[in-house]
């Protein structure tokens, strides 16, 4: 059998997994394992096929059956997805089987030798430790990170939504780009809400990043002055908003900004400012609409976010400034540069260069920031666009998606928003990837 083993082995293995290894190379153990794999697959092929078909049909509506016997479309979708994953894995194994057969066949044809069972087991044992050790991580990440991402994309192409397309009572159907069209068609209610929310989300992320960055920079610079004696004390105070859990402080802020009873309103009342504003015609009542006037609410959201977010940049910038090389500054002093020039032409460019990645990460973080908006306003105040679309005037894409999914169960539209968020995050993910050391140096 040595002649043409390089051709026969892969051919036989392509016909049935392990066949080439058994018949041509007499590698019984390996061949048997591979053959068993294919047999198991073939025995379950019917179930897999049904699951994949379910992914396409998503079940038939059968109002005559009791609820628990009806087709559950979302489960069928998931099963179909899993079946596809199994099929893909099987195809990969099949390919590995053929590649192995070709390699071993070539070796056999050239030298007449074959890998012995003992060698095979030793090889397997070494690799097995790596694969078995990684299997928990791989399983968890596949089930709870990768599949949800794929599944969320699929949901956007269905009509999975309240009131009439919610399993287990009703089935869900593929509707193609229908939902996308509704979100994008000009003049429609949802598209107007979508446009408004996207613009505000973008403004929110950009302004949050800039305010916290420059706020942190300002304080870091002020505390970096050699003459400030008790910089440590100030630094400890300024780090507090970062140390206390953010959500707790957002709840507290929501109360401080209570228009009627909050302490800020009370302070202004004590100063007679409320009375004065009322006489000026700015205020209609005794309450100050900190969070109930759209523009005011947006400003307050940004200010509270600044309060929460500046310590991070203060810490990072302080750290970078202390590690800046002294000699550049000395050289600049000798050349007659003044303090401002040193800051403008040395400190600032160095800082910007080193903190640019942080700013970009902060931007993408703020795009997805949920609590910073929801815990303060829940997306309110509402207006005429809110009826029907549920998007309040301070809702970002994140909070709107949450409300559509949790409060109103319009899952398909929520998924379209989720996809938009993927699309927005993706460039950041790739940027983040491209700037890593391991990527740049071409090794992992």
């Amino acid at each position: 059998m040595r002649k043409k083993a390089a051709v026969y082995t892969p051919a036989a293995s392509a016909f049935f997994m392990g066949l080439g290894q058994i018949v041509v190379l007499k590698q019984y153990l390996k061949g048997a394992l591979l053959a068993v794999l294919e047999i198991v697959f073939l025995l379950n092929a019917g179930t897999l096929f049904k699951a994949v078909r379910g992914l396409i049909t998503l079940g038939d509506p059968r109002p005559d059956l009791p609820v628990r016997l009806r087709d559950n479309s979302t489960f069928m979708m998931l099963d179909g997805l899993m079946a596809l994953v199994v099929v893909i894995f099987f195809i990969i194994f099949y390919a590995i089987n053929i590649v192995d057969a070709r390699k071993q066949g070539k070796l056999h044809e050239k030298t007449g030798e074959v890998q012995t069972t003992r060698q095979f087991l030793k090889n397997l044992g070494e690799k097995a430790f790596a694969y078995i050790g990684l299997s928990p991580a791989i399983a968890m990440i596949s089930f709870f990170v990768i599949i949800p991402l794929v599944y969320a994309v699929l949901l956007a192409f269905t009509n999975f939504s309240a009131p009439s397309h919610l399993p287990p009572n009703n089935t869900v159907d593929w509707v193609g780009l229908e939902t996308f069209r509704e979100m994008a068609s000009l003049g429609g209610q949802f598209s107007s809400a979508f446009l408004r929310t996207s613009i505000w989300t973008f403004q929110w992320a950009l302004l949050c990043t800039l305010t916290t960055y420059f706020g942190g920079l300002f304080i870091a610079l002020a505390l970096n002055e050699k003459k400030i004696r008790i910089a440590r004390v100030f630094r400890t105070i300024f780090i507090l908003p970062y140390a206390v859990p953010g959500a707790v402080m957002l709840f507290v802020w929501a109360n401080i900004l209570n228009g009627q009873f909050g302490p800020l309103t009370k302070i202004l009342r004590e100063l007679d400012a409320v009375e004065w504003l009322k006489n000026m015609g700015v205020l209609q009542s005794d309450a100050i609409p900190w969070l109930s006037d759209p523009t005011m609410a947006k400003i307050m959201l940004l200010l509270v976010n600044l309060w929460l977010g500046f310590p991070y940049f203060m810490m990072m910038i302080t750290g970078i400034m202390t590690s800046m090389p002294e000699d550049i500054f000395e050289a600049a002093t000798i050349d007659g540069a003044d303090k401002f020039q040193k800051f403008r032409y040395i400190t600032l460019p160095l800082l910007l260069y080193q903190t640019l990645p942080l700013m970009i990460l902060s931007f993408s973080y703020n795009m997805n920031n949920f609590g910073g908006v929801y815990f303060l306003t829940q997306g309110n105040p509402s207006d005429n666009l809110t009826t029907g679309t549920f998007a309040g005037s301070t809702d970002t894409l994140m909070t709107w998606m949450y409300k559509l999914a949790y409060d109103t169960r319009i899952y398909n539209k929520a998924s379209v928003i989720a996809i938009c968020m993927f699309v927005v995050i993706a460039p950041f993910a790739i940027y983040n990837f491209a700037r890593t050391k391991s990527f740049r140096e071409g090794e992992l």
Partner: protein
Amino acid sequence: MRKVLSILNHVLTYTILVVLSVMVLYPIAFAIGGAFSPGKSLANLNILPFPANPTLDHFDDLFNRTNYILWYRNTFTIAVANTLVVVSVTLISAYIFSRFRFKLKKPMLMSFLILQMFPSVVGVIAIYVILNRLALSDSYLGLILVYSAGALPYNIWLIKGYFDTFPRSVDEAARVDGAGNLTVFFRIVIPNTLPIIAFLGITSFMAPWMDFILPRFILRSDSKKTLAVGLFEMITGRSNDNFTMFAAGALLVAVPFVILFVINQKYLVKVMAAGAVKE
């Protein structure tokens, strides 16, 4: 003239810093003051956050009239379980990625790097359906799996990077002496990288405390509520009735957090800075 300017500058800087300190401290002080103030509502709190006759009634109410202790225990359980899962799975995976060569290593590491950018929350609807399918909805196990899986890609990278800096020659020497994979892992790699493992443990422990969306989606029954959801519901829309009690509850979460933060601070800054500048 120059001296006057310099003094003026000095005074101005200090004034700004003091004003900013007050702005930073006031909300915190207001919440602490609220926790000890008599009366239930926001309306009868003083502007100055120091109650004239402090009381512990709100802590009493919190323990006896609400499910606060239950929420705290639930969240604590989830946090501990999350820590155990994340630490054990991350360490073994990072060890393998750092020390072994195998075919799919590179594509796997690359996909982790990209995946860690997507917050699990974006896939929350899908996660909800998946947990229903696996009969894990409304269970801690489901929530813990989602949390820890979401944390793995980033943490594996972090710890792998750290293991890479630990010299390979040491574990090769042990191998020569007959140590197997697991012995090297438990006896050599882990004992020599304890600080980063402690850091990983603390951050995994802290992560679930104030999370809101996932527990609200996944844990639907009242008895399984977590702290963030419980506190949010206590305060939203009815702050005028409950503020002081909420403040007491918030204080009991914030204090351990600040302590953990202080313990972790040096390391935290270092890891964040390394992530930003070098990598």
